[in-house]
């Protein structure tokens, strides 16, 4: 038996496999037993109703997909009255995800979702398609520190801060979030990109710019997880391009305590559970009694081949 539990601050998850916000709803119970997941992560909610961005909202790329959904939401009241009870039909902890345009509203939103049924608050300060310029709090450490400090004061619940890979210096943002009192970091949201339809000369998606996700972004985000894990003490949740067991192992070796998945849900709706089974099997075969022992276990030295090459004299 492999111990699959992981601890994120004072929250213990029965396993490190979670869906990413925006790629998950209880509607996935159409195809899988979502009670097996480590946690349920709701789609980001804003105070007011948001219609989202105009279609088409997705296009394929060479390396994955680009999307611009634009955070459609029925608003905080609907979330609390209808969606939260719907999530509570299931057993895993509920991670509520919030977004706002201002620090004031972020603070107020935090108080609003601070209800007994919400176990963790994920703070989405990093959606690249929320406004057309791709701007957000997670683009700058001062904004991140400011908004996270306000949120920290507004709740005693665990707060997970979702970072943007589009910031120039993600490590600085990670430190700012930690300093402001975040309990964990989710690294990361999607990477801002542009696809042009060469038949029409127009952008391929309605919002022009969109967020790139899928296997192509994984090495970039794994690198960010590793860099941030060396700079902060709080747990990191790796998120980007996971499609197989080995990807989860990589994220954990890089320093992640748990992972979130989005794209794979679109390709293999029941793939998260296959990866969960496969991860336990992988640990068993490699002699890991606890999956948590993988976290940060990357050997931070050059590959063996580098030594072999150095030892071979060049004439």
């Amino acid at each position, binding site marked *: 038996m492999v111990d699959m539990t992981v601890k994120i601050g004072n929250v213990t998850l029965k396993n490190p496999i979670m869906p990413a916000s*925006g*790629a*998950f*709803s209880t*509607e*996935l*119970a*159409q*195809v*899988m*037993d979502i009670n097996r997941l480590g946690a349920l992560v709701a*789609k980001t909610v804003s105070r007011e109703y948001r*219609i*989202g961005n105009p*279609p*088409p*909202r*997705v*296009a*394929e*790329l*060479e390396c*994955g*997909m680009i*999307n611009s*959904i634009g955070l*459609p939401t029925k608003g905080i009241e609907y979330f609390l009255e209808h969606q939260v009870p719907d999530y509570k039909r299931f057993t895993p902890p509920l991670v509520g995800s919030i977004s706002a345009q201002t620090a004031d509203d972020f603070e107020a939103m935090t108080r609003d979702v601070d209800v007994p049924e919400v176990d963790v608050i994920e703070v989405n300060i990093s959606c690249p398609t929320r406004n057309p310029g791709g701007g957000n709090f997670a683009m700058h450490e001062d904004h991140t520190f400011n908004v996270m400090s306000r949120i920290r004061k507004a709740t005693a619940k665990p707060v997970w801060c979702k970072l943007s890979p589009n910031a120039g210096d993600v490590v600085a943002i990670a430190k700012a979030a930690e300093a402001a009192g975040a309990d964990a970091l989710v690294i990361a949201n999607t990477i801002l990109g542009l696809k042009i339809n060469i038949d029409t000369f127009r952008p391929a998606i309605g919002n022009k710019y969109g967020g790139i996700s*899928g*296997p192509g972004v994984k090495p970039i985000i794994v690198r960010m997880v590793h860099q941030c894990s060396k700079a902060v003490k709080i747990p990191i949740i790796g998120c980007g391009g996971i*499609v*197989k*067991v*080995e990807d989860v192992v990589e994220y954990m070796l890089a320093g992640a305590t748990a992972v979130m998945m989005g*794209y794979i*849900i*679109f*390709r*293999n*709706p*029941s*793939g998260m*559970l*296959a990866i969960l*089974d*496969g991860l336990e*099997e*992988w640990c068993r*075969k490699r002699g890991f009694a606890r999956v948590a022992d993988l976290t940060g276990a990357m050997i931070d030295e050059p590959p063996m081949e580098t030594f072999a090459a150095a030892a071979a004299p060049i004439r």
Partner: protein
Amino acid sequence: MGDVFASAPFIVGKSEPPPIETDIPAEEALCPVISHDWVNEEYKHLVVAASPKALTVRPGQFFNLLCPSPDAGELWLRRPQSVYRIDDAGGRIEFLYKCVGRGTRGLATLKAGDRLNIVGPLGVGFHLDPSWRNIVVLGRGVGLATLAPISQLAAGCGVGVTAILSARNRDFIMADDLFGEVGTVVPVLDSDRSSDVENVERILLGLIAAKRADAFFTCGSNRLMQLMKRLARQHGIPGQVAMEQVMACGLGPCYVCVRTFEVNGRKELRRVCIEGPVFDLQEAVGW
């Protein structure tokens, strides 16, 4: 354990198919391809062996298909495909599709004996009211395929079916034999201009006058949908439209496949995958 790359067929869980769980209505499954033939230069007919859960598909529902790549690149997203024929006794489901982009070009490479990864059955299908004695289905092009199962179901319930099949020319009249088995076929063509909206309107008005139109069903043409919507409103006939949209998850969470609808003067976006693909004709705005 070797890498399971995204391009490889993804076998979920154990090799044994999961037991049918009644509270989990859909599933991801690998279906052996039984036959896969061109029916004309653009349309292909795919027959796969289906699991018991897949066979619970209702007319108008769809499956999200993981198509093989047609080229050196990867296909990252599934392609939604409504079911064309449900062969419960034979344990088969059939698709009829137009080869139009990378997804369907990749799908077209499947050969008998290959396995197709499907997710489904998904979405809200057509509704057949027991009080209806005669229905009219109006489809264009490959949209006709979506209307075939509801026509068969209606005929099986003793309901009279008139199928108006619109296409460029005779070669592209899809499945008229299948519609012929279940009702009256009225082909309308671009080649002799019988597919003009004015002519289709005359045909529909004739059916209404003859009391052969208790309900309308349509798919595949915005022009014909608008016509049917107008006549349905004027004559108080209930109508349903099956719609398409680019999708990602096919299950609801991603909010990619939205289209515009209008209820009591208020416009709203709905997801084709879970609030449709079949919608009330009067609420559909079109595309």
